[in-house]
């Protein structure tokens, strides 16, 4: 469903990505892993349109998307979360989700200003749908709180909820478990799996928590210094000698179900 | 034909030199603070009017008047930064734009109150016959304006490249936190940048007044044109600012000469909009540099 083809990207002489290609299958949870600075976030930024690649193409459902820019890519059905949480901090939890519904609704300036019945209907529908999403991610009880007051774990989950509100077919998660404790990480893993199983949304996951990655992903792509060094099922990746070499000296990244010294 | 063209060209270069100085003034504060100081035009007016005050009203000798005008402008720049920019805590962009606008209005109000609404003029720096090039008449003062602008540019170049203070100011613009870490007093650099930009503006005002007169409300239009020159050259780049300033001056003078004198003021705005639309990074700066900018 998503296919990244021969992507090159450099930042002022520093090559961040060289010739990256991989595919994501419909309904899969795809993990992108690799040491810090391997280019994972850059890659997500390219897929979501924040950066333009120097060379290469990204196809989404058979359509070229790289030059569309972030908001049109989002409307095509790719939604995302951010490594450093980018919630609308001054708005309530519910409002955050409601903004997510923006692209799926259409009330204009004029009709909103004069409160046409169609607008009122749509507004009620946005509210209903948003509350439904909040309950789905188990944040219903927080709905009227200001988003920046939530603990980081719930902020990350709220960000996923907001991404869901746009009605995506593909969702990109940039280190959703960063800063989360063990219980929060487990809840997160459940939500990710739930949205794939029940909502049939394909997931691309950039993550350092190997325990989480190995537990929930269907396939893993490993990046190092801007290149793909391995690809396969979690089991294959765990046994891949190149991956082990890449991760030597980064043991703290590999805690959990995987050891750099087998 | 040629004579007329040259005449327009030289008068364009003369006003263009002042736009270039305003644009450089924008760059100096922008580089140190990421603020576009919208009061920049008022400093030009201050330069012209204070010079008149010292040399014509108080009848002080020329060089004393120049020195006192520069001093006055520097003090106003200093006061502006210390009284309005420094006390702001966590200012956002909108607030910073508005505060410099507010200061420009206060300055304009003070100027209007003390000088009234009529235009002021004083004699050219040197008396003497105008220069004749292929029939085009160039007043000596015009040569002064262009010469002084050139001199300022060279001086600023050496200031930023060779002196400790200049290098420190440049460092703040490249990376504020890093500058702090190596022990540069960033707040003081911001202050210097306001003083310096005020002085640069005032010098432009002193030089141009004998040619184009000066009145209290010329500031906003000078700011728009200087900003346009800065954008054209790529904001932050002094070389670009000079080219942009001359280009706008010449285009304006050609429009006034060949099309209609009333439409000359619209030229800068049209150029500004076209550049923002086509190449917002400016003609002489790459897109990546712009991306790295905070605002």
């Amino acid at each position, binding site marked *: 469903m998503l296919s990244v083809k021969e992507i090159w990207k450099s930042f002022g002489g520093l090559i961040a990505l060289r010739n990256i290609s991989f595919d994501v299958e419909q309904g899969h949870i795809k993990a992108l892993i690799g040491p810090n600075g391997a280019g994972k976030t850059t890659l997500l930024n390219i897929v*979501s*349109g*924040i950066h333009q690649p120097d060379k290469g193409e990204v196809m989404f459902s058979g359509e070229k998307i790289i030059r569309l820019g*972030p*908001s049109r890519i*989002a*409307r095509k059905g790719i939604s995302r979360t*951010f490594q450093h949480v*980018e*919630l609308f*901090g*001054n*708005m309530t939890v519910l*409002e955050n989700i*409601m*903004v997510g*519904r*923006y692209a799926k*609704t259409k*009330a204009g*300036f004029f009709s*909103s*200003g*004069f*409160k046409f019945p169609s*607008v009122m209907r*749509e*507004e009620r529908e*946005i509210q209903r749908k948003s509350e439904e999403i909040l309950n789905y991610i188990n944040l219903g009880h927080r709905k009227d709180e200001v988003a920046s007051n939530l603990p980081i774990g719930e902020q990350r989950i709220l960000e996923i909820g907001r*991404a869901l509100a746009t009605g995506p077919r593909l969702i990109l998660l940039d280190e959703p478990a960063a800063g989360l404790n063990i219980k929060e990480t487990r809840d997160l893993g459940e939500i990710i799996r739930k949205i794939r199983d029940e909502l049939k949304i394909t997931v691309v996951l950039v993550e350092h928590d190997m325990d989480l990655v190995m537990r929930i992903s269907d396939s893993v792509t490993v990046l190092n210094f801007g290149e793909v060094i391995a690809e396969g099922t979690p089991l294959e990746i765990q046994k891949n000698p190149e991956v082990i070499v890449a991760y030597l000296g980064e043991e703290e990244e590999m805690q959990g179900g995987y050891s750099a010294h087998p | 034909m040629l004579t007329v063209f040259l005449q327009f060209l030289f008068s364009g270069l003369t006003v263009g030199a002042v736009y270039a100085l305003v644009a450089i003034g924008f760059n100096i504060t922008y580089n140190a603070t990421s603020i576009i100081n*919208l009061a920049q035009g008022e400093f030009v007016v201050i330069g012209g009017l204070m010079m008149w005050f010292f040399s014509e009203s108080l009848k002080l000798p020329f060089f004393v008047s120049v020195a006192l005008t520069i001093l006055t402008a520097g003090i106003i720049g200093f006061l502006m930064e210390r009284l*309005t920019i420094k006390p*702001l805590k966590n200012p956002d*962009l*909108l607030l910073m*734009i*508005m505060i410099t*606008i*507010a200061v420009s*209005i*206060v*300055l*304009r*109000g003070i100027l*209007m*109150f003390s000088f*009234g609404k009529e235009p002021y003029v004083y004699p050219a720096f040197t008396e003497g016959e105008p220069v004749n090039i292929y029939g085009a008449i160039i007043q000596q003062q015009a040569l002064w304006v262009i010469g002084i602008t050139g001199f300022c540019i060279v001086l600023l170049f050496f200031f930023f490249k060779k002196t400790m203070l200049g290098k420190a100011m440049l460092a703040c613009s490249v990376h504020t936190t890093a500058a702090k870490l190596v022990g540069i007093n960033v707040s003081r650099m911001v202050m210097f940048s306001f003083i310096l930009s005020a002085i640069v503006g005032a010098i432009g005002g002193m030089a141009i007044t004998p040619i184009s007169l000066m009145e209290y409300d010329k500031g*906003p239009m000078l700011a*728009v044109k200087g*900003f*346009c020159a800065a*954008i054209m050259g790529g904001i932050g780049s002094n070389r670009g600012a000079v080219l942009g300033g001359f280009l706008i001056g010449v285009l304006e003078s050609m429009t006034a000469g060949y099309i209609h004198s*009333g439409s000359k*003021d619209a030229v*800068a*705005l049209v150029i*500004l*909009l076209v550049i923002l639309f086509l190449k*917002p990074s400016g003609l002489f700066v790459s897109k990546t540099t712009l991306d790295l900018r905070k*605002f």
Partner: protein
Amino acid sequence: MKKEDFLSLLILVFFVVLLPVISGNTYTLTVGIFSGINALVAIGLCILMGYAGQVSLGQAGFYGIGAYVSSILSVHMGFPVVISTILAMGISAIAAVILAVPALRLKGHYLAVATLGFGEIIYIILNEWGPGGPSGFGDIPHFGFFGYAIDSTQGYFYLIWGIVAVIMFFSINLIQSRTGRALRAIHDSEMACNAMGLNVTAIKIKVFILSAVYASLAGSLYAHYVTFISPSSFSLFYSILVLTMVIVGGISNLWGAIIGAVVITVLPELLRKFEELDVLVYGLILTLSLMFFRKGLVPILIDKIKKLRGFAFAKR
């Protein structure tokens, strides 16, 4: 619409209906009319600044287009006043698009400077090419509906504040709708808005157009009320006056625009004009409120009321 806003709107209507009854003198009503006209411009600027985070220094330009275009159309071409007012709003909207599309694609100071230049240029155009040049022109017809012209001060007072009430109703609904939510979201994180599929630039452009149309409407109302206009009413000074109104009232609250407009319109009347000092006085008011009352009057009042209520509840 929230309960407070509905209540405030009711109070506004109540005041508007009552004022001419209590104080029938023409002077009070005239000041009231000018307050209302300024309030329209201020509401537009308030939405632009408080919600889209952009500042315009060219509202006088749109105000001027509104006044001149609608006057010229009705005086020289015989258009009905209502039609010429609407046409003027259209022209202002087009001018706004031309300014906003280049300037708002980018972040930062660009709109501020572009609008500053725009305002100055409109001012120059009115002086050079406007009917009567710098001395302006007169005999502009009053507003009228179905052949019945409104020419009494009281009639105009009701007309203008009626329009203010409608515009306020419209604006409050707008900022509490999907669009308003999007604007608040843009304030917090433009990057996230893009990732949610919001077209950030388009929303900002629309808001800027809205503010231009409000100013244009106000300009037409002004011209057809005073029946004589000259360029001096549409200089940069007016843009700054409106900016001061919005800042003094409080940019984060639409009611601030109305309160600010009334305060800044009534103030010089109370102080018997500042004569030559007016530019300086408004500059100082603007600077000082930016530095010390950044929130503005209305939000500060709301805080006070909340605190008082807090005490009242605590006592119980």
